[in-house]
């Protein structure tokens, strides 16, 4: 069986600075992997490299999705191929109405699949339903994308987009940061609803607490651009107790 995502000896630089220094990681459909690591270890960089962001240059290795290299694909092509990134810092789009933005994204997928564009009324209904599960109000849906949203609202809005776009490979970058206990619960429930045998997730976090809610199949510890240690969900607890320093020593 071909893996959904296969990262092979991936090296990447920002500017002239090497950040990822040889990452190997294989993710199969249906699995949930967690990446933990101290600040500055390269977690967000890895998510951007997967998504194909400009300025994040792959200097070695490869990223395969369903056996095909992503490296020559533009970010929007990767997205339409099923790669989704929930941003650590979602971006504000002043004046861009939420509904038109979400619809543009869904239609881009549909056009790619040779389907009809979604009709406006039907779409509004679908969005409302999914939004409700995430505690997103109609008022929030009417506002411009991420503008004036609280930290928690932004994170929920990312999960709403994931629910609408139904990606096969979802990367969630610190979806827990800045959330209080209640918000963390809502977001985690939203994510858990999206766990699916046809989808894999890569959950990036700094803290173990998220992984109590979104329980991963595998945990990897990233430090200084490399995966230092991999294990089951119990590895997260180990880190919680002894800190990242301990992991570094073990490596």
């Amino acid at each position, binding site marked *: 069986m071909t893996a959904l995502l296969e990262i092979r000896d991936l090296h990447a630089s920002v500017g002239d600075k090497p950040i990822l220094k040889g990452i190997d990681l294989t993710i199969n459909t249906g699995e949930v992997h967690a990446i933990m690591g101290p600040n500055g270890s390269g977690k967000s960089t890895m998510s951007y490299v997967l*998504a194909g962001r400009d300025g994040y240059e792959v200097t070695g290795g490869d990223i395969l999705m369903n056996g095909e290299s992503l490296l020559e694909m*533009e970010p*929007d092509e990767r997205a339409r191929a099923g790669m989704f990134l929930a941003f650590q810092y979602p971006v504000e*789009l*002043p004046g*861009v109405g939420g509904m038109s*933005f979400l619809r543009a994204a869904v239609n881009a997928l549909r056009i790619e699949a040779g389907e009809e564009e979604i009709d406006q009324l039907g779409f509004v209904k679908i969005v409302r339903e999914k939004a409700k599960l995430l505690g997103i109000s109609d008022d929030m849906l009417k506002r411009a994308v991420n503008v004036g949203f609280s930290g928690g609202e932004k994170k929920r809005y990312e999960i709403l987009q994931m629910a609408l776009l139904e990606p096969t490979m979802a990367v969630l970058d610190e979806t827990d940061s800045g959330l209080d206990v209640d918000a963390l619960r809502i977001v985690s429930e939203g994510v858990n609803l999206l766990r699916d045998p046809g989808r894999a997730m890569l959950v990036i976090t700094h803290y173990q607490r998220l992984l109590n809610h979104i329980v991963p199949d595998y945990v990897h510890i990233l430090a200084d651009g490399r995966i230092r240690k991999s294990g089951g969900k119990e590895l997260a607890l180990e880190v919680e107790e002894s800190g990242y320093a301990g992991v570094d020593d073990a490596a």
Partner: protein
Amino acid sequence: MAATTQTIEQVEQATGKYKYGFVTDIESDKAPKGLNEDIVRFISAKKDEPEWMLEWRLKAFRRWQTMTAPDWAKLDIPPIDYQDIHYYSAPKQAQKLKSLDEVDPELLATYEKLGIPLNEQKMLANVAVDAVFDSVSVATTFREELSKAGVIFCPISEAIRDYPELVQRYMGSVIPIGDNYFAALNSAVFTDGSFVYIPKGVRCPMELSTYFRINEQNTGQFERTLIIADDESYVSYLEGCTAPQRDENQLHAAVVELVAKTDAEIKYSTVQNWYPGDENGKGGIYNFVTKRGVCRGDRSKISWTQVETGSAITWKYPSCVLRGKDSVGEFYSVALTNNMQQADTGTKMIHIGEGSRSTIISKGISAGKSQNCYRGLVHMQPTAENARNFTQCDSLLIGDKCGAHTVPYIVSRNPSAKIEHEATTSRISEDQLFYCLQRGIGEEDAVSLIVNGFCKEVMKELPMEFAVEAQKLIGISLEGSVG
């Protein structure tokens, strides 16, 4: 017919961008090239005008001869040979049209292709249209329904014959013939345009719109529009325009005058989509337009909303003279330039009345190698007790070969007047673009979304029927600006 279809196809193949670039193959009746008193007489005779109108034109022409073109704008205008232009061109047709059925089918097809069906069954349900083709109005829809409400909506050439008192009283009252070089030229040779009169207490039952089309080669278009809103009346008026894609530049020098009386409101919207020239700056319309409205009565209101995406060069400052007590002037503008386009546009708010208020929201978008300048004047006269102005000028740059400039002039002669001015310049951020791309939205669509978001405050002022069109137009005009 065949020739037209062929031309359309050629144009689409050649560019695929400016979709209104086709030429209608229709026989026309033209004045010889050049400008002199005889040409002015020729135009006046063609229009069957009364003597007073001819005299007015001649006076304007003599005035124009003594004037020079303004050179203060941040525009690089190549010399224009005013003797190398046809000042009159009209499609040949039976003199007077009784109904739309008599309009040349070729013309109806042209407007249909432009998205402006004049045919009764296909007309936009709540929009009356005056269609001006080169120098003449070829059709005006919904006239009967409007006249039931007492509204006059007709070609200005007709108003000169049928409502001479109104025309004589108001034409030139807002923009005198000697106001500026282009206004003087227009006053001498204007050919057609729309005339609107809304009687006292009437809320015009539908949107009024004029659609201007330049078709002929080497012709100028000099339309003139006059809108009078009597006491307590309301009208919303929209102007649209396109021209064929040609290698030579063509001149468009329009004059629009608005008069709002006590408690009256005029909302004037423009979607300007004249041919902008090609990527290398070849061809395109020179758009030198004088637009001004006077809020004569107390509590009267004039709003200008413009979406400017076309023309090689735009020189245009729709203005409000706020004479009435508590009168209101508004200017909402989106000016988008791409490739080699140049725009110098803005507004003037002249506050005379006590308590008069004005709002200016200008959104300039520059892409390609274009230059985009906002130029605006806010003038508080000594009588403008407690007058207020709020100005916000935002510029958005796409790429690093274009320019954005903001030139505000502020004159305050009344210490109680308040003026606020905010200005920003930004680029489409890489963050925003990547966020959209990551959602699967292609780069051009992403830019169009972000730019439309940037313009939102202005776009929402457009009548519903046109807002969607205007949004698409922004997307189309930005094609090729990224990547």
